[in-house]
C-alpha cells in the first residue's frame, strides 16, 4: 500500500499537474515487490516511476538513495510524507533536504506554488504556521495537505494507461546504513479493564485519584 502520508502528497501532486502543468514522477526504495504499489501511483496519474533496487534498511540510507535520484532528475519540488507508518522515523524528507541543501517544510498541511515562490502551511503544536519559501523545495506532507475525501483513487482508464508508463529500475548508490534494528518487542500484555457503574461516577474519580494517581 502507499504510505498514508504519501497518498495525500500524491493527490496534491495531481492538482499541480492538472492546474499548473507539473510533470509528476514517483520514486521508492524497495524490492520488485513494491512495483504493484508504484503502478497504483501511475494509475492515479503520475507520469513515470523510479524504483531504487535496494531494501529500505533505514531512513538515512533511503534518504541518500532518493537524494541521488532528486539530484540526477533535477526536480524542483519533492513531496514526501512526514513519516511512514511502519517505523515512524520521520527523517527521510529532512535528511534529503540537508544533503541537497534544499528548502524544507515538515508536517506540511498546505502548499501553494507561484513560479519559483512557495507558501507552505505547517502544523505546529497547538495550531499552524504559514511559511514563505521557494523552489527547490522538499515537504514532509500529511493529512490536511488535501482533504481525506479528495484523495484520488485509480480508475479503469488510469489503470490501463499505467501499463504504458515507464517504471525505471536503478541500482543503489554507495550509502551508509546509519542505524540497524536488532530486535522487536510487543507491548506488555494488558490487564482486564476495571468497570465502574454508570450510576456511581464517584468511584471512577476515587480510582483515578487514589489508585492510578492521575488526578
Amino acid at each position: 500500500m502507499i504510505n498514508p502520508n504519501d497518498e495525500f502528497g500524491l493527490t496534491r501532486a495531481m492538482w499541480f499537474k492538472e492546474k499548473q502543468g507539473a510533470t509528476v514522477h514517483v520514486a521508492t526504495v524497495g524490492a520488485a515487490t513494491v512495483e504493484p504499489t508504484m503502478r497504483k501511483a501511475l494509475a492515479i496519474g503520475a507520469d513515470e516511476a523510479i524504483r531504487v533496487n535496494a531494501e529500505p534498511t533505514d531512513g538515512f540510507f533511503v534518504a541518500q538513495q532518493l537524494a541521488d535520484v532528486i539530484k540526477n532528475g533535477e526536480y524542483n519540488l519533492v513531496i514526501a510524507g512526514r513519516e511512514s507508518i511502519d517505523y515512524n522515523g520521520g527523517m527521510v524528507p529532512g535528511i534529503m533536504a540537508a544533503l541537497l541543501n534544499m528548502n524544507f517544510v515538515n508536517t506540511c498541511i498546505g502548499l501553494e506554488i507561484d513560479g519559483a515562490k512557495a507558501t507552505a502551511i505547517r502544523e505546529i503544536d497547538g495550531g499552524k504556521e504559514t511559511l514563505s519559501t521557494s523552489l527547490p523545495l522538499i515537504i514532509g506532507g500529511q493529512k490536511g495537505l488535501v482533504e481525506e475525501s479528495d484523495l484520488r483513487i485509480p480508475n479503469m482508464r488510469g489503470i490501463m494507461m499505467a501499463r504504458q508508463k515507464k517504471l525505471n529500475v536503478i541500482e543503489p548508490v554507495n550509502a551508509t546504513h546509519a542505524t540497524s534494528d536488532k530486535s522487536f518487542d510487543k507491548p506488555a500484555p494488558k490487564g482486564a479493564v476495571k468497570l465502574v457503574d454508570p450510576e456511581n461516577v464517584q468511584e471512577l474519580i476515587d480510582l483515578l485519584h487514589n489508585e492510578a494517581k492521575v488526578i
Partner: protein
Amino acid sequence: MSVLVYTEADNGKFKKNALEAASYAHKIAQELSTSVTAVSFNVADTSPLATYGVSKVLKINNDSLKTFNANAYSMALAEAVHKEGIKVIILSSSTDSKYLAALLAGKLKAGYVPNVVAAPDSVNPMVVKRMAFSNKGFAHTEINTDIKIIGVSNNAYGVHENNATLNEEDFSPSINDAAFSTKSVNVDKVVGSVTIADADIVVSAGRGLKGPENWGMIEELASVLGAATACSKPVSDMGWRPHGEHVGQTGKPVASNLYIAIGISGAIQHLAGVSASKVKVVINTDPEAPFFKAADYGIVGDAFDVVPKLIEKLKEFKAQNA
C-alpha cells in the same frame, strides 16, 4: 566530549519536554562518564536546567532566532556540536524538534533514532528502545555512526532530578540571512490552551457524541481537568472538530498520563495513536466496543448521562482538593 541537549522553551520558560530531554541526556552522559551541555535560544533564566543534571549551557541570545526556524536552529546546533566535539545529541519529540532533528542528522551525517522510550540498552554500541509500527510495538535500534542523535518520546523516560552546578556561557552561532530561506510569515495558535503534545490529561470524543453541537460537555470536562481536547478520525473528517484534534495512527500521538475516550469504539488505528498514554478511561454505551480491551477503567453507559455527572462530581472533587 559531553552530551548535547536542545532545550526548548516557550516564552523564555523551559518546556517539560526540555527537562525530559535533559534527564535523558544526563543518563547517557553518566553511562559515557561525561557531562551534559545544553543549548538554549533566548532564555534569560537557564538555572532550572541544573536540577536535571546539566552542567553547562550555551546561551544563544539572538533576535533573528526568536521565532523557531528549523534550518537556522539546526545550523546553530551543528555549530555547537563542532565547537564542543559532541558525539551524542538529545532532542525531544515535539513537532519543532522532529523538524530540526532530520535536518541536523543530514548536516552531521548522524544516525538518528526518534521516539525513544527508555534508558539505553547499552551505550557501546549505542542501542536504544524506540516505538515502532505506529506504537503497536518497539524496536531495539543500534546507531552505527560517529555522531548520534536520539529523540526522546514524550512522557516515557520521564523527568529525573540530578542536581548539578550549571556554568552559563554566551554562544553566538554565525547565522547569516541565507539560513532563513524558509521563513515564518504567520503563526496561528490558541494562546494559553493546553496542547495535546504537552497535556497531562486528554479528553477525547468520537461518533458516539452524534453531532458537533454536543461537544459542549466535552469542552467543559476538559476545562475542569485542565485537559486538552481531542477527537477520533471520523469526527475530524466530517468537520465536527478541527483536524488538529485528530489523534490516532495518521493523526497526533497521545502520551499523556490520562486519556479519557468518550463515544469512541477503539479502532486499531485510533488505539495505535493513543497507546503511549499511561491510563485510559473509556465511556461507551456498547459493552463490546474494542476499546474496553485496551482500557484501564471503563463505564458502560450513555455519555449524555455519564459525562454531566462526571463533570459535577469532578467539580466537587477539585473544590475539596484545592
